[in-house]
């Protein structure tokens, strides 16, 4: 009997005990009707070949292990970044359980959202009654300042009209006439979570800005961060930089406090977020800057329509991307970039110079949201690394073109390949046929690490199996330091592991590296 009270064995050691190994071997042999071991081995080896890769890339319909989620997840995340705002998703209720779980598993924080709980009858008659009752209940129970409505694919397929439904609900007194209920249609069968983010932020801006007189306040800036699992660290870091510069700015959509509430005995359903009044005032800003272009295409269009200047970035991280962001802020605000920031920049460059010998020529595979992949590819090239595979399941042809342009701008990008619309099963073939030193992505990459032996660095949403990384910034020069250190740790840990066998490889197990 392997178990004891003295040393309790949980799943990881328990099932490696001989009793269990034997039991599982017998189960397989007697009851599972398995394939012959050789057949399994042959197939496994076949999946490592170029021939399998070609079959894999010939897929047209089946998607396996995609690196993207659906629009309403982005909508819920976006809504969460506004003051006392309850995300309300109109459609089937199971979806909302999924969004909340997904966000909680990444942030290790509460994630509140409600559903209009539509079922078969609503599929036939439409979900108006659900909207009317739902808004009334949410308003009464959860005391929000705003309810931001989005849709699941069910409501989209049956064609529920949010605008008229919300009007109807207000007529029926679900919420006061002047209560803010912005909305966005967020069909799951179009785009991905980054588009749900875009639609929701645009919906909120339209709700507050439409028909309002704009009085331009020169030098003021709106910042829209985009869907970002590292918002907690990033937003705070960017605010610090903007404060150092003395810029007058408004973060539009800021979930950094909502997803980082303290443990002090009080559960805060709402915390932080962009104040409603600030959203209203933001109409007057001279410019709106997006930190993630592919998260804000429609929102920026609208900002231009109302007369604002706009600019967008790709997750400003590393040296040159941060430079560009700060220069743009400086140009619009008329504020100089202070010496303190120049020193920070110098410290990042210093760190990169100190470590360059370990980074030069390293090959990487990158995947994630389009702006993130762009940012990482750029930073890696700054360190002398080569972004061999750049993959975004939700990358568009426009993204592909932009990536190719970026990669062509550096000798370190000349071998790089861009994979728009491909999934992580395609990445598996890439890693077998054209191997790299490091893989950068999120927790889903752990299966690739297991199968191909490529060390995984988790730097993008969602990260379920490591804790608290999202609390630290990746953007800006400081964020660059964090990314740099994370990559180096992975390289050194691997090298130590490979050189640690006593009397065999440990001559290279150097104390100083």
């Amino acid at each position, binding site marked *: 009997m392997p178990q*004891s009270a003295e040393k309790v064995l949980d*799943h990881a050691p328990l*099932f490696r005990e001989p009793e269990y190994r034997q039991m599982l071997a017998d189960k397989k042999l007697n009851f599972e009707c398995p394939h012959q071991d050789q057949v*399994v081995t042959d197939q496994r080896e076949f999946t490592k070949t170029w021939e399998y890769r070609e079959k894999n890339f010939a897929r047209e319909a089946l998607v396996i292990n995609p690196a993207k989620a659906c629009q309403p997840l982005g909508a819920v995340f976006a809504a969460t970044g506004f003051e006392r705002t309850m995300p309300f998703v109109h459609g089937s*209720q*199971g979806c909302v359980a999924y969004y909340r*779980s*997904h966000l909680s598993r990444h942030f290790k924080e509460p994630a509140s959202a409600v559903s209009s709980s539509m079922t078969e009858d609503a599929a036939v008659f439409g979900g108006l009654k659900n909207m009317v009752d739902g808004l009334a*209940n949410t308003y009464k129970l959860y005391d929000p300042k705003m309810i931001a409505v989005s849709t699941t694919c069910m409501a989209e397929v049956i064609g529920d009209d949010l605008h008229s439904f919300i009007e109807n609900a207000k007529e029926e007194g679900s919420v006061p006439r002047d209560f803010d209920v912005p909305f966005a249609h967020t069909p799951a069968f*179009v785009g991905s979570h980054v588009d749900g983010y875009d639609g929701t932020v645009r919906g909120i801006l339209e709700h507050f800005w439409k028909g309002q007189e704009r009085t331009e306040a020169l030098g003021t800036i709106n910042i829209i961060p985009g869907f970002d699992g590292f918002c907690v660290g990033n937003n705070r870091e960017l605010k610090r930089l903007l404060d150092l510069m003395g810029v007058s700015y408004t973060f539009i959509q800021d979930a950094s406090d909502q997803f980082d509430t303290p443990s002090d005995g009080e559960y805060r359903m709402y915390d932080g977020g962009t104040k409603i009044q600030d959203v209203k005032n933001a109409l007057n800003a001279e410019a709106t800057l997006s930190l993630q272009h592919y998260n804000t295409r429609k929102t920026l269009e609208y900002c231009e329509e109302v007369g604002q200047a706009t600019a967008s970035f790709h997750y400003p991280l590393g040296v040159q991307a941060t430079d560009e962001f700060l220069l743009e802020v400086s140009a619009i605000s008329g504020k100089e970039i202070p010496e303190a920031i120049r020193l920070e920049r110098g410290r990042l460059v210093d760190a990169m110079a100190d470590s360059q010998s370990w980074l030069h020529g390293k090959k990487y595979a990158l995947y994630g949201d389009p702006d993130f992949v762009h940012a990482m590819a750029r930073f890696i090239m700054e360190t002398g690394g080569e972004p061999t595979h750049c993959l975004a399941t939700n990358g568009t042809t426009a993204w592909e073109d932009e990536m190719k342009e970026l990669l062509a701008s550096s000798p370190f990008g000349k071998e790089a390949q861009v994979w728009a619309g491909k999934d992580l099963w395609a990445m598996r073939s890439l890693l077998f046929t054209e191997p790299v030193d490091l893989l950068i992505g999120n927790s889903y990459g752990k299966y690739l690490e297991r199968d191909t032996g490529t060390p995984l660095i988790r730097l993008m949403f969602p990260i379920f199996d490591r804790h608290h990384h999202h609390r630290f910034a990746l953007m800006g020069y400081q964020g660059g330091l964090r990314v740099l250190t994370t990559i180096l740790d992975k390289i050194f840990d691997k090298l130590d592991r490979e050189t640690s066998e006593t009397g065999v490889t440990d001559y290279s197990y150097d104390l100083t590296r």
Partner: protein
Amino acid sequence: MSLEYENDGALHAKLIEEVLSQYPDKTAKRRKKHLNVAKSGDEPGEEGEILSECDVKSNIKSIPGVMTIRGCAYAGSKGVVWGPVKDMVHISHGPVGCGQYSWSQRRNYYVGTTGIDTFGTMQFTSDFQEKDIVFGGDKKLEQIIDEIEELFPLNKGITVQSECPIGLIGDDTEAVSRKKAKEIEKTIVPVRCEGFRGVSQSLGHHIANDAIRDWVFEKREVEFEGGPYDVNVVGDYNIGGDAWASRILLEEIGLRVVGNWSGDATLAEIERAPKAKLNLIHCYRSMNYICRHMEEKYGIAWMEYNFFGPSQIEASLRKIAKHFGPEIEEKTEKVIAKYRPLVDEVIAKYRPRLEGNTVMLYVGGLRPRHVITAYEDLGMVIVGTGYEFGHNDDYQRTAHYVKNGTLIYDDVTGYELEKFIEGVRPNLVGSGIKEKYPVQKMGIPFRQMHSWDYSGPYHGYDGFAVFARDVDLAINNPVWGLFEAPWKRRPSRGRAMAAE
């Protein structure tokens, strides 16, 4: 080992009144039927026998906008029943999200080479686009099945897990499945588990069970030599290895587990289930349907059992043994005796550290009742419990587990649960990921009782030791004593004890 105690029914009644007063009238009227205080249980009785009254309305529609914790039919089928069948490919048929959010989240452990002969921790989706909604997805589904065959030739079959749009746009996944099954000569199972069907996960379980009956049973020749002690374990999803920690006991008492549904399951185990002598059902809620069918059609008896905590394990083992007669009964007594020292050690170690601590539960399936005695074995007190998607028969089965005055909540809303926990301030809450962090922010220890908080197994004797350790480490961690800044400090609530 039944623990004697009574809960503060008056307080609980008051809490119910308070939460109801906050709802709009219409909603309050509806929610009132889901909340109750259990009344006077005398002697513990047989499963199913109502000795105390904890009746609430259940298995009816959730109210819009109240933040129900429930999921959907797809979650019940793909997430619970079918997903763990390891040598089949399960297509999340529709848009990308459902498959993405449920990918690898239930911790259904299995042994196999993933992507080659097993497919459990993968996400296969038809990733519906607008054109699929407009023109239908049947053609696409056919092509997907071909591509699966090309890339994963060692799969034993395929299931098509319908997401919301499929039923709304009128796709005929049954016709596609029939046609392609003939073509590739493998089992293909269409499951109509669109998320808008029914009121919770529960209908998804039922639909998934029916799909086994209609698309797996009697579809292919099954060559299998049955034996006198053949059993199926039904409704154990092998979360954190639960089914393995159960199987080892059943084998030790002399039974042959010919199929495990559906944790670590293969299609072969499902196909030959009708040849077994007895169905042992752990999660009654999600798999009773197929057991009833097998009883009617094949005359296979079924029996509920409970492998949480030593009291229930012993009772269940004896009940199971009785079905098979003296030879098995004798072995069973030996097995119980063999594990008794482990049980005694675990209780001796952990009970003094946990005695008298109060627990509130809010879970799904079988757990709101099945785990109660495991806590009581450790001297802990259950003050409240409720089901996400239980039916009337679940609440009947709960009656003899709970004590007088226990707070009962069906399909609890976020608001109610928060207020109940605030009002009761239990020493531990056992619920899901969505509830974990709000509860911990209040300074109350928490364990996820769906995923075992990434631990497990919790079933069987080996699992009980893990369960006891986990409850102890949750409650007795020093962090709970650090919540208040010293300049704001009131008397500390923390009662940390170092690990032993």
